[in-house]
């Protein structure tokens, strides 16, 4: 009897959660991250096909990070700097979007929507800068 009432309470909470999610999903618009500055190649828009890069960019970035930092491999295909250089674009006034607020920044637009906090930009710069070192391809 006790179990039955517990289950029904859980069920009610579940339905409540689903409802609240549905309500909040309606009020938040799906992110529209800014387009990249150029295509990676004629055949492909980004460094990987879109569905793969959307799902696995975190893994690519981490793998690249360890290769670069620990082993000195400095290609740009999966580098965070290369992502930023291509994807972070200026607004009409020529300003770069803020990584700490709003939803205009390329990384932030989706991560805010998905409620995933990213720490990259506490240390890494979030805007493209003139790179003093020519990058090796």
């Amino acid at each position: 009897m006790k179990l039955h009432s517990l289950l029904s309470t859980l069920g009610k909470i579940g339905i409540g959660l689903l409802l609240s999610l549905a309500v909040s999903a309606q009020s938040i618009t799906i992110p529209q991250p800014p387009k990249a500055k150029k295509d990676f190649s004629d055949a492909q828009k980004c460094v990987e096909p879109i569905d793969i890069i959307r799902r696995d960019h975190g893994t690519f970035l981490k793998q690249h990070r360890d290769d670069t930092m620990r082993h000195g491999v400095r290609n740009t295909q999966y580098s965070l700097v290369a992502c930023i250089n291509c994807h972070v674009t200026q607004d009409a006034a020529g300003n770069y979007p803020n990584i700490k607020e709003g939803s205009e920044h390329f990384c932030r637009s989706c991560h805010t929507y998905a409620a995933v906090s990213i720490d990259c930009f506490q240390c890494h710069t979030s805007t493209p800068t003139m790179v003093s070192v020519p990058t090796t391809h």
Partner: protein
Amino acid sequence: MNEETSPTQNRRDFLKTSAIVAGVTVAPGVLLYSVSQAGTTNVSSKVRWGMLIDTAKCAEDCNECVSACANEHGLTEDVPPAVKPQWIRKVGLRDKQTGKEYSLPMMCQHCEHPPCVDVCPTGASFKRDDGIVLVDRHICIGCRYCMMACPYKARSFVHETLENQKPHSPRGKGTVEGCTLCVYRIDNNQEPACVEACSKNGHKAMLFGDLNNPNSEISKKLKDVASTAVRPDLRLNPGVRYQGL
């Protein structure tokens, strides 16, 4: 299977071919290393980066290496002097008996046996295969054991939130940092910023190169002149050596 390709013959053939393949791959490997494919393949322990500093050429009033470093890595935040980052600094020494004064730049000495790596509880402080000692700030917990272990006081701690970091030199609050020997420049066949600034200024007190390559300029000079490590008694075998000290 016919008789000619019996298992024994196959095995022999395999060994022969693998010996040939090994020979072929080793040779270009050596070639690659000498031509330097920096930045495209894993760094190797065949190289050991180091520096020779000529104290006779280092001018007392010159601070170019320090400002070049600050400029290169964006060490320009406005913080109290006690917590200012010091990746490289000028040190003045005076011989008590003779009164002779020396001026020299002091930075991470990129030890062969770095105490900072020994004490790091997370593995954040590490030595790259080519001898460059770095901090992996992704896993640094900011405990500062390495700062205490370092006899050269070569590391700094970031106390404040930073903004507008350089793309090639990320830094952030709560982690320890120090001279990276401008590792991204080295991986791109360039000299560290301090060495470049020193020779641009005409002092040429800093010589950078591969200590393991007997034909490099630095190895030849080390063989020729008397040089010493700072605190050689600690037997850390630093990659940075000083001449005329």
